């Protein structure tokens, strides 16, 4: 490949197919397109590749790479373009196929937080402890560092994040003489009061569809009660413990008992739950940061200027929690050019790059200090108000078997929410999940 000054050819992206790579080069070739590689590069540079989902616009990631390539003269990065993050199953497949070859391509990649343990467990991600000192890790949100750590080792570098948050109708809160609720009980009380007064059709909207987003809602409610789904070692299954049972019972009660949520939430993911809220029918909504832009836009929302984002409520004895999403950086354990790969990954995670990423592309920084930055406040005023929300960032269960664990959770919790038989569904889930994580 070094003989080819025009950049990598397609064949170097698709090396000889091994026995295990039965999915074959064709599938990978379809999933990955080599972009931006036909650029002349200065002689003597180290060549590395960077695989990433296509965030925001078509050229957002390519622009970042260009910025890096022109900022120094030692390393040249080429971009392996993966599908957009909305097709995360395909992005996951594309990465797994590449990494499983263990041939060092891609040298650096971006990964959804829920894949970090899987890639680390498979030995595909380079531990980064010797490159990122403990003190430097303090500059990131603790929840993100937790998600990037597998068996005590830092195996991913924080890049950008998103979390769940509570959207409130400030005009309705004023009408009820209430402040933004701190606890779930307060939220139920405010909702009921406003619903009974006829000021709002619904109290609280969330996402109960049997899908990944249900697990996000679940993590938030359980963690806000001091509980967890898996213990810190990734082996203990805690989903049948009292804090988790009480949390799922609360989710069920919002529909069946307090009736602050319509039964339709059981089939809603993000957008179906967002529409009634921006249509003015609800007091509270749990959703991601993208809703703010829509809610404040008078063309798309009938409640523009009346919406405020806040940390989600918690149980009386717990702390607010926000399910962590977003993509983080990984370095291929088999990279042939470790120094260059690390340099690029550290640059991508640096405050300067994150600030550009946040101001220009709207991807929220994983460094809390940046949210106080004057430039960001100017470019993304809504984002700069979310510092406290992101403080509650809580990872989903950290286990290499996450894809199987999440399917088991989705099934069990959806059953519990439909039947109300919370305890027995969660103890069945415990058995199932225990047998899944025991193998890892």
């Amino acid at each position, binding site marked *: 490949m070094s003989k080819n000054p025009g950049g990598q050819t397609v064949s170097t992206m698709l090396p000889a197919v091994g*026995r*295990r790579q*039965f*999915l074959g080069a064709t599938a990978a070739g379809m999933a990955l397109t080599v972009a931006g590689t036909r650029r002349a590069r200065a002689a003597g540079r180290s060549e590395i590749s960077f695989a990433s989902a296509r965030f925001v616009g078509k050229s957002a990631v390519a622009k970042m790479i260009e910025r890096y390539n022109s900022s120094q003269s030692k390393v040249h990065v080429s971009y392996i373009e993966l599908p957009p993050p909305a097709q995360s*199953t395909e992005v*996951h*497949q594309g990465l*797994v*196929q590449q990494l*499983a070859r263990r041939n060092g391509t891609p040298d650096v990649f971006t990964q959804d937080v829920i894949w970090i343990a*899987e890639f680390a*467990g*498979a030995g595909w991600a380079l531990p980064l402890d010797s490159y990122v000192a403990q003190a430097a890790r303090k500059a990131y949100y603790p929840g993100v560092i937790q998600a990037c750590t597998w068996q005590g080792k830092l195996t991913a570098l924080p890049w950008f994040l998103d979390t769940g948050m509570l959207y409130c109708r400030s005009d309705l809160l004023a009408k009820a003489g209430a402040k933004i609720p701190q606890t779930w009980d307060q939220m139920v009380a405010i909702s009921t009061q406003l619903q009974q007064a006829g000021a709002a059709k619904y109290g609280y909207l969330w996402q*109960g*569809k*049997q*899908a990944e987003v249900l697990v996000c809602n679940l993590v938030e409610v359980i963690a806000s009660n001091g509980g967890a789904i898996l213990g810190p070692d990734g082996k203990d299954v805690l989903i049948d413990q009292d804090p988790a049972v009480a949390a799922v019972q609360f989710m069920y009660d919002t529909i069946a008992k307090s009736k602050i949520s*319509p*039964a*339709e*939430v*059981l*089939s*809603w993911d993000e957008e179906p739950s967002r529409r*009634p809220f921006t249509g003015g029918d609800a007091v509270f909504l749990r959703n991601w940061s993208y809703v703010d832009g829509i809610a404040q836009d008078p063309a798309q929302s009938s409640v523009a200027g009346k919406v405020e984002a806040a940390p989600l409520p918690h149980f009386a004895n717990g702390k607010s929690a926000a399910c962590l999403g977003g993509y983080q950086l990984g370095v291929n354990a088999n990279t042939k050019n470790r120094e260059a790969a690390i340099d690029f990954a550290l640059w991508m995670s640096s405050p300067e790059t994150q600030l550009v990423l946040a101001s220009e592309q709207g991807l929220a920084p994983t460094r809390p200090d940046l949210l106080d930055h004057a430039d960001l406040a100017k470019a993304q005023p809504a984002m700069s108000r979310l510092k406290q929300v992101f403080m509650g960032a809580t990872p989903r269960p950290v286990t*290499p078997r996450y*894809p*199987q664990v999440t*399917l088991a959770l*989705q*099934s069990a919790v*959806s*059953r519990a*929410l*439909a*039947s109300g038989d919370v305890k027995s569904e969660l103890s069945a889930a415990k058995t199932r999940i225990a047998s899944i994580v025991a*193998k*890892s």
Partner: protein
Amino acid sequence: MSLSNPALRQQMRATTSASPSAVPWALILLLPAAIALGAVAVYPILNGFWLSLRDTSLATQDDNFVGLENYWLLASDPLFWNAWRHTIIFTAVATLLETLIGLGMAIILYESFVGRSLVRAAMLVPWAMPTVVTSKMFGWLFDGQNGVVNWLLKTSGLISDNINWYGSPDWAFVTIVIADVWKTAPFMALLLLAGLQTVPHSLIEASKIDGANAWATFWHVRLPQLTATLLIAGMFRALDSFRIFDLVYVLTGGGPADSTETLSTLSYKTLFSTLQFGYGSALSTVMFLTEIVIAIGFGIFIVRKMRRAS
């Protein structure tokens, strides 16, 4: 195949009544089709079966021969049986409804009336629509809060409270059946209409002369003549609806409470979300075997019917 055996050669000559030199030619001409079929049908099936005997997982990098272990796991997996049951029920109910409604449509469209050809063409629109579009459309129609179906039912006084079509385990499955019936009944109608047109007109005239009313003509003349078509169309539909995927994937994702999980959605999740290729292949193999059983079931009736006819 060796043709050196004179008895065999004799036999082939007798059955094909071809000259000896034509036989190798026939085989050569068959070769492209055989290779194509082998490459796109036989090989993937055999390879899928081979994978189902291994614990291959792309994520964990396991790849060992485990014999029938995947099948034992499958047999004790409640989620598999849940999906299997849903798929069988869906296939039976959807095929039956589509056949009945399709038959009704075919009978109406067989009669001549003003604008018949327009109606015949329009009837095919639901079937021609991409299923993802159908799914999105039904998502709006059956929306629990603002859907037009709930509004109609409520306005006409049939229900007092909105039905939670997709959020309730009892209704979600029904809604998917309705969507599938809407989409594919026209296809059945088309097949059955073709069948109806093969019924000799003389038979209908004879029955009229004998004084049979419309119902008797249908029941004693048309329907018996239509049985073979019904069975073949039913088999197509059953095998097709057994693979139901897109409606479920777009509308409910298998939920709520696994109430709409089918074998196709479950194997998609197992194969492509969790990347357990071994276990997922066992799931697909069982799916394939079930389809074979369904096909054989229909096949027996079809063959019997044809024998009787000839």
